[in-house]
């Protein structure tokens, strides 16, 4: 695997950085937050980005995709992460889209993927329930056979980009006990069906998230992804992909947070000199620099490993999430500390990144979770 951008990738990266910086600087994120608008992003702006082909990057040409990989999608998401642009590339494009692409039958793919790709439809994946922490298989939601379909009941928590979604994919238990890898089935549930309610949640990072309640929602077998009782493996596969995309967002965020900090170190005066001239801060900044560089390498490697089906892929995904979680938290903790007083105020942007860092760390498993997974994969 080559850990360097080829010319096409260079171009995508530059385009994305310029476009997002110009059309969605952090000030836009702040306005969206202050507006209190529930969706938290602009559907119109998302469609504009989709028109640039961004939402189709990782999908096959036959469904309207660009037939590229996560490596390329990550370039887009890194630019979004840098500017905290809230459009649903993680929830809909990566999570909903990948589930459809990897587990959907022909009809489902045909019906949904093209509109996920052109940004006209949003499909979320309800991967977690309250109290489950990082256990994908801890699922209380049930799907019981009724006639030639199923009835779903249960509650999903913090479903990403579910507010305003046109459909939500619901992992439910068709057999086995909570915690089992088998006995999980994924259903695509369209908005508006009887018994489905979507309740927006307010998160520390303002990410679009909702409680999705299912009270006797009936689903046909045609809405099943990954086969009956076979959703567990699909779910893991999709979350590994989502984890890598989240890592790209984190790399973008930690890079911007570090840049903001360096700028401040160069402009803020105390004791008659720039605070960036204090050696203690210089050396700590040097440490942050190294951790950010390492995190970036792991994120690049993990994306490429998934694209090429590398045997080491799972380990590299855990490596990336662990390193990115630690580096993003370090970069933002140090950032706020170096901004000092004003870093604690809502008025400055550095605090946004600190909140985002924590939220990303606690999504899809934190560093200790992935250290544990790494050790298990290494037979110890």
């Amino acid at each position: 695997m080559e850990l360097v951008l080829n010319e096409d990738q260079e171009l995508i990266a530059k385009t994305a950085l310029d476009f997002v910086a110009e059309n969605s600087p952090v000030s836009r994120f702040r306005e969206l937050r202050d507006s209190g608008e529930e969706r938290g992003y602009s559907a119109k702006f998302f469609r504009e980005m989709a028109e640039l082909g961004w939402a189709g990057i990782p999908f096959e040409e036959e469904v309207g995709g660009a037939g590229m990989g996560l490596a390329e999608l990550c370039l887009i998401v890194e630019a979004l992460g840098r500017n905290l642009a809230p459009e649903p590339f993680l929830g809909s494009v990566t999570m909903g889209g990948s589930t459809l692409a990897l587990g959907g039958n022909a009809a489902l793919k045909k019906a949904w993927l093209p509109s996920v790709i052109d940004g006209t439809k949003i499909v979320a994946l309800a991967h977690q329930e309250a109290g489950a922490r990082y256990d994908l298989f801890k699922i209380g939601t049930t799907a019981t056979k009724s006639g030639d379909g199923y009835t779903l009941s249960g509650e999903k928590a913090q479903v990403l980009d579910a507010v305003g979604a046109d459909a939500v994919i619901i992992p439910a238990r068709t057999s086995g006990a909570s915690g089992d890898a088998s006995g999980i089935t994924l259903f695509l549930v369209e908005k508006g069906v009887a018994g489905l309610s979507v309740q927006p949640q307010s998160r520390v990072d303002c990410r679009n998230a909702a409680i999705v309640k299912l009270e006797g929602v009936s689903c046909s077998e045609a809405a099943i992804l990954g086969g009956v009782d076979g959703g567990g493996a699909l779910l893991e596969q999709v979350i590994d992909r989502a984890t890598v995309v989240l890592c790209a967002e984190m790399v973008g965020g930690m890079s911007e947070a570090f840049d903001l900090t360096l700028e401040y170190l160069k402009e803020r005066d105390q004791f008659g000199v720039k605070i960036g001239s204090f050696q203690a801060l210089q050396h700590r900044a040097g440490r942050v620099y190294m951790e950010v560089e390492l995190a970036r390498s792991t994120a690049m490697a993990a994306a490429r490993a998934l694209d090429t089906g590398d045997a080491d892929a799972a380990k590299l995904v855990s490596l990336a999430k662990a390193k990115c979680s630690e580096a993003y938290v370090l970069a933002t903790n140090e950032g706020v500390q170096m901004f000092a007083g004003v870093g604690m105020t809502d008025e400055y942007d550095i605090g946004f990144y600190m909140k985002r860092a924590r939220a990303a760390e606690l999504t899809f498993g934190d560093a200790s979770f992935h250290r544990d997974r790494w050790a298990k994969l290494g037979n110890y």
Partner: protein
Amino acid sequence: MSDLETFRQETRSWLEANTPKSIIGANVTELDGTWGGKKATYANPDMKVWLDVAAEKGLTAPTWPSEYGGGGLDSEQAKVLAQEMKALKIPPPLVGFGLTMIGPTLLRFGNEEQKSEHLPKICRGEIRWCQGYSEPGAGSDLASLQTKAIREGDEFVITGTKVWTSYADQADWIFALVRDDSSGKKQEGITFILIDMDDPGVAVSPILLISGKSPFCETHLTNVRVPVKNVINEIGSGWTVAKALLGHERTMIADAFGGAGLKPKKKSTRSFLPDLAVTHLGLDGEQLADATMRGEVAQFEMDSRAFALTVQRTKDAARAGHQPGSESSMFKIYGTELNQRRFELIVRILGPDALGWEGEGFDESALNATREWLRSRGNSIEGGTSEVQLNIISKHVLGLPA
């Protein structure tokens, strides 16, 4: 029977006789304690009654001289009073910066007129005070403050902005550092002065933190006319007064974090953090399921205990009559960092359930933990950043060259 024992018994009977029953055992937090002042609020009406009888008896400021409204007690008696109030679960009649900051400063640096003017009002909870030190351009480098005080006859005309003025929106007076002279060294030409916030030209706006609402305010002073007699100590000697107060503040903050993370939860064989971790991560046999988290929780508990023991060691040494060193900087750094580690651990233990900001689908306790975690990031900044404290240790404790 020793005088102290007599005093103890008199104190207890007086307390039993004069404390309104309704407030006994009332768990009074910093926020709903009685801060006094013109905008005073009370956790319940009897807290007002309690304030008045206590003030009458001089118990709001037990060790202050009685001529200024204090209790005139010596430190031994004051300790007995505290013990008895604790035993009877009686909340303090009055809290706030008047008692902890400006009062002691006036007693040390104030002249007779200033003391008899302000101390009694503090003791009776009539006037609430706030502190005006930091400025937008003067944080760690406090001495570079720029708020101007121009002498006009027997008045100073003061213009500038003070930040991090806690509770300024509820205070009546502010004690502030102002610059009366920019010609010399920056530590010179600073004056410590008392300002009535009802004076024209004083405007207060609250500061919103990353953790949400806060007691902090920005206080704008525009051509505020303050009589020269409100200067504490001499004109241009404010830095001396401020430094004395700063060390004091550092100690208060360190004390506040002295026990960080050591509150054992009732009805559990485990202390608070392990218990929380077991609740959310479960057990694997006899041990916390997540081994890494187990190590981190143990490490945190052990560091907290080691820190608490060090605080105790310093206090025992002081009681044994040893000169206190500059431990306050160490306590400030380590105590605040422990508090940050504590909330970081709590948030990581809760996992995704800790990502709530408000409203639906999140426990109240989880929402609080998240706000507290964010707020705790400020602990290593306020009251002198950890970096400034490390500079102090390096210079004053380790004697390393500048």
